[in-house]
């Protein structure tokens, strides 16, 4: 399988704490890969490293065989890696549609002057932005909520809106940071369907999730982190019976302890 995204020997230190120590992993094109691990294992840190929000102390991030380690977040978004946030970060005082329209900013180019004068090029841009944004809202099933204020929508819709916003960048890889967090089982089921649909569009999905049934159902591969180290990697079946993983989640049996 062709590798699209890879991290190689990543170290991230915050003061004296090693958030990630020598983590290497690779993601195959068109797959759904999940990162799991107990709280504080370094999952979100890894996503932040890939998306350019954190520059690692050591190691390399590769996208499509290109070194993107030192790109900052807006540059990473432009090369084709989009993300969502664990703690929703929607734009305040903007409708759902406007939230998605922001992502089309980089796909258009009219500048200050042509926008202020409303030249034909900026009108064309604006029409294209609106059409595309509506398309992605419809894709996540929020077409009829387009004109609601993003932040006053129900939580589940907000999660979907973040995904629509990321998809509107037309990325090759989408990083989903705990998209099922705070969703009820029904909503989670809907989310699983949506992630499948994203994969079917040919977009590679890298997912961080705590909801194990979701992860085991939809992942092609799973990477397990604990205390900033990668402790296991494999298919859902392989990971489920891995001793190190069971120990990380449940602790060591009392008989072996000590």
């Amino acid at each position, binding site marked *: 399988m062709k590798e699209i995204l890879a991290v190689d020997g990543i170290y991230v230190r915050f003061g004296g704490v090693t958030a990630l120590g020598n983590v290497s992993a690779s993601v195959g094109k068109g797959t759904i890969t999940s990162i799991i691990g107990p709280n504080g294992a370094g999952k979100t840190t890894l996503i932040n490293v890939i*998306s350019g*929000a954190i520059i690692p102390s050591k190691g390399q991030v590769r996208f499509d065989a290109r070194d993107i380690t030192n790109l*900052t*977040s*807006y540059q990473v*978004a*432009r090369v084709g890696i*989009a*993300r969502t*946030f664990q703690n929703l*970060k*929607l*734009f*305040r*005082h*903007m409708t759902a549609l*406007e939230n998605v*329209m*922001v*992502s*089309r*900013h*980089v796909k*258009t180019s*009219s*500048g*200050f002057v042509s*926008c*202020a*004068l*409303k030249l034909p090029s*900026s009108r064309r*841009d*604006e029409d294209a*932005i609106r059409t595309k944004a509506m398309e992605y809202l419809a894709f996540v099933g929020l077409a009829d909520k387009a004109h609601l204020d993003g932040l006053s929508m129900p939580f589940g819709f907000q999660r979907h809106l973040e995904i629509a*916003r*990321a998809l509107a*960048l037309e990325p090759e890889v989408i990083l989903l940071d705990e998209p099922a967090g705070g969703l009820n089982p029904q909503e989670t089921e809907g989310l699983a369907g949506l992630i499948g649909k994203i994969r079917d569009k040919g977009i590679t999905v890298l997912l961080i999730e705590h909801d194990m049934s979701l992860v085991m159902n939809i992942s092609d591969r799973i990477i397990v982190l604990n205390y900033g180290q990668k402790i296991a990697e494999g298919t859902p079946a392989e990971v489920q019976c891995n001793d190190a993983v069971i120990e990380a989640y449940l602790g060591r049996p009392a008989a072996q302890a000590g």
Partner: protein
Amino acid sequence: MGRSNFVTLLIFAAIIVVFPLALKNPYYLRVATFAGINSLVCIGLSLLLGYAGQISIGQAGFFAIGAYSSAILTVQFGCNPWAGVAAGICLNALVAFLVGIPTLKLRGHYLAMATLGIGEIIHVVLKADTEDITRFIAWFGAKLGWNPAHLTEWLQPYRALTGGPSGLVDIPAVGALKWGSVELAEQYVRFYLVWGVVCLAMLLSLNLIHSRIGRALRAIHGNEEAARAMGVNTTPLKLGIFVISAGLASIAGSLYAHCVGFISPVTFSINESILFLVMVAVGGMMNVWGALVGTIIMTALPESLRFFHDFDILVYGLILLLIMMFMPHGIVGLIQKLFTFEKKAKTGDT
């Protein structure tokens, strides 16, 4: 720009056209002209503050650069007034660019600090007399072990250039217009000129706000981290809007110089910068219409506060306090809220 904004702008323009005809007192017309000049500065400030989320406490400095560029070029060098306007805009753009580059890369209110400083520097430089400048250069030269004695002579004309503390007089003022037998008195010409420019600035600002650029700026304000994660390069956008706000202040300064006919440094102190901020806050910072409403109210208000004499600054403080406590989105924000509330109540949608 949405349809409703366009209609509002048309109504607004119509009010401007008939306003002087309904008003016979030339003094009020003068106040209204000043309100227009202040509005230009405040539209720029509102773009910066309300849409990009950046504060400038130095708009009076940019206002001053515009006014002095116009005054110096026309009075001292006999240039065409348009040359003064253009020079002011270019100089302001340059200053804004230099101040903005290091500060706007950072998140947080570094721009506020830097503009506070630059506004005060501009004020001090304009207020300075030749002796102040020579003394400063001598002091600075001594620090570097360099004797700038030969500069002193060269600096002599400085006072004559800016007029020092007393400012510049005899700036060519906008005069009456004549078409055959029809004559438009100078106060009307000034009023229509200033408010015509305000309308144009409103049109361009509204266009900009409702474009990809404006949306990206609002996104930065709404959540900077998310905006960057969606591929928005925040620095050039913030820089661009800051330069635009400085440019608008410059145009306002040039208009001021040519409408009043004389300028002095007192007009461009930090108090004026703060007053611009109050105007924007009163009207509502999330909306350029708010800047307009706030400016009109805060320019007209001092006239009705005359009986407070020197205590009017206390009244401003009280107004700002009350606005921040009870309507943080300003007057226009409050009206909008009431309006949408009503709409929601009608459709039963909450």
